[in-house]
């Protein structure tokens, strides 16, 4: 198919596309090192005229940024860990133990995949209000500690692991927990990593959930906090751009190290 498009035209267009993708990131990083005067005087510049670190100093001093960062780490980290554990346990039951009600469970999982998250948002808010869990870590974490999509994906993967492996383990006297922990999980490492990366990215980036379930600045996560402070017309753009840059760093580093798991997360979604 490449014969029909002349390579020069094609690569020029691709380069323009890559430029459009990259410029906002370069501008963001550049802007985080610029003074407000520099931004107003030279809006056409991509990079700072005389770099200053005041954005990075003020973001820790003027905003509760360390606390927001910690909240994000706790929320995304703990939830991802629980989610991968619970999803894989449920997937093990559905893929490996024949039991009455398995079909019903599987269908429940599929149905919850179809209902948009916003339908449950208000009732869950009211539930957490009644439990006194609004604005707490457990309120942020526990309702999100499993995912129908993760269960579905891992079940599909577990089904493809040869059954001879568990049968051999069973003959050696292993019970279900040992089979799950020592046979299935180690054979499913790539799938587990894919699910973990997918969950962590979604949770780290989530806005609507932390925005609704927290109401004081000391419980805000990075996206929710930056959004609120940007909405209050914080006059210094460098501070917010520095915050945005720092909040992108963990995922960007993970992407640089393990890009294939990010891509696999999307590609497996497409292939079912």
């Amino acid at each position, binding site marked *: 198919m490449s014969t029909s498009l002349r390579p020069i035209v094609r690569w020029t267009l691709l380069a323009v596309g890559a430029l459009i993708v990259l410029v906002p990131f370069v501008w963001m990083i550049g802007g985080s090192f610029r003074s407000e005067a520099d931004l107003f005087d030279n809006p056409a510049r991509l990079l700072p005229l005389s770099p200053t670190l005041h954005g990075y100093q003020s973001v820790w001093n003027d905003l509760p940024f360390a606390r927001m960062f910690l909240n994000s780490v706790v929320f995304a980290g703990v939830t991802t860990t629980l989610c991968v554990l619970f999803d894989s346990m449920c997937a093990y*039951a559905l893929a490996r133990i024949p039991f009455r009600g398995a079909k019903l469970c599987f269908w429940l999982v599929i149905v919850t995949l179809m209902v948009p998250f916003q339908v449950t948002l208000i009732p869950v808010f009211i539930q957490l209000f009644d439990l006194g869990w609004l604005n707490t870590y457990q309120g942020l974490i526990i309702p999100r500690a499993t995912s129908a999509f993760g269960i579905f994906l891992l079940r599909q993967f577990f089904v493809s692991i040869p059954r001879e492996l568990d049968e051999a383990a069973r003959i050696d006297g292993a019970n279900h927990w040992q089979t799950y922990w020592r046979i299935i999980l180690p054979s499913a490492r790539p799938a587990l990593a894919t699910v973990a990366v997918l969950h962590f990215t979604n949770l780290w980036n989530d806005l609507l959930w932390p925005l609704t379930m927290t109401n004081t600045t000391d419980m805000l996560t990075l996206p929710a906090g930056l959004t609120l402070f940007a909405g209050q017309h914080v006059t210094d753009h460098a501070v917010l751009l520095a915050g945005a840059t720092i909040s992108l760093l963990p*995922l960007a580093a993970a992407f640089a190290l393990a890009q294939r798991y990010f891509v696999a997360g999307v590609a497996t979604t497409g292939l079912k």
Partner: protein
Amino acid sequence: MTASPVGAPVETRVAPRRRLHGARRAWLRDRAAWLFAAPSLLIIAVFIIWPIVQSFRYSLYDWTVGASEQQWVGLDNYVQLLHDDLFWNSLWVTLVFAVLSVSLQLVLGYAAASALQAETWLAKAVRSVYFFPTIVALATIGMVWRFLLDPSIGLVAGITKTFGGTPIGWLQDPDLALPTVIFVNVWKNVGFTMVILLAGLKGIPGHLYEAARIDGADGFRLTRHVTLPSLRPTLLLAGMMLTINSLQVFDLVYVMTTGGPLNRTDTLVNMLYREGFQYFNQGYASAIAWVLFLIILGASALQLRLMRYNDVD
């Protein structure tokens, strides 16, 4: 954790003479499975299934969180929605957003995927670049774009001024705000679409192309008669996923415009958030959620139909 070690086949332990009740026997046989599934099933039951039921119930009340008595209003919330100009406005905004975003994402995603199929280092590098925005928070990058498009400090305004133009308030102009938000959404998701379509393209068997070439098909005809038909299931799936996501758009709008100017970017979920969490009309907001659900179901059914999924050969 919750699942304790459970022994091998339980059935053998049941003494032949003792008759157990069906439920008890089923429990003994299946308890390993239930214990493994318990954490997930509990969370799904308590925080997804039950809330779905509750959501519909709230939509029949004039519900306010924490009030001692909630007033039953039947279908009034839904009737009120049909007479609410803001609802029709946000429905229109959401549909325009979804249709334009999804078609642009599919076209550009397909172009990128078919141009970058090669496994050379250059193609791989460009693919990584295109994919990168996918991992970034919409909220964060939406804020960066808002500054970038700002008429006084933004790079776009700066470039406009350099060429002697007057800077444009992309997000302040009622006619430009929605197209601008759509542009940023497309910018973020082209890489996502590209990866899904690449996986589909890789799955097309090479012999189909060879057979078509022997029949004298050239570049365009190969695309038209081999690539696109073979890609139909993948295109359908990508289209449905992108549509479902676009219909639920919130982050970008909330961060870039909060629904303005003049409600021109006020999407359904933005309206739901405002009603539910700023005005605390939780019954009304629940009704909006159910309408959104119906629209998503309808859009998915329509796409299945349009793409004639059933007679994929």
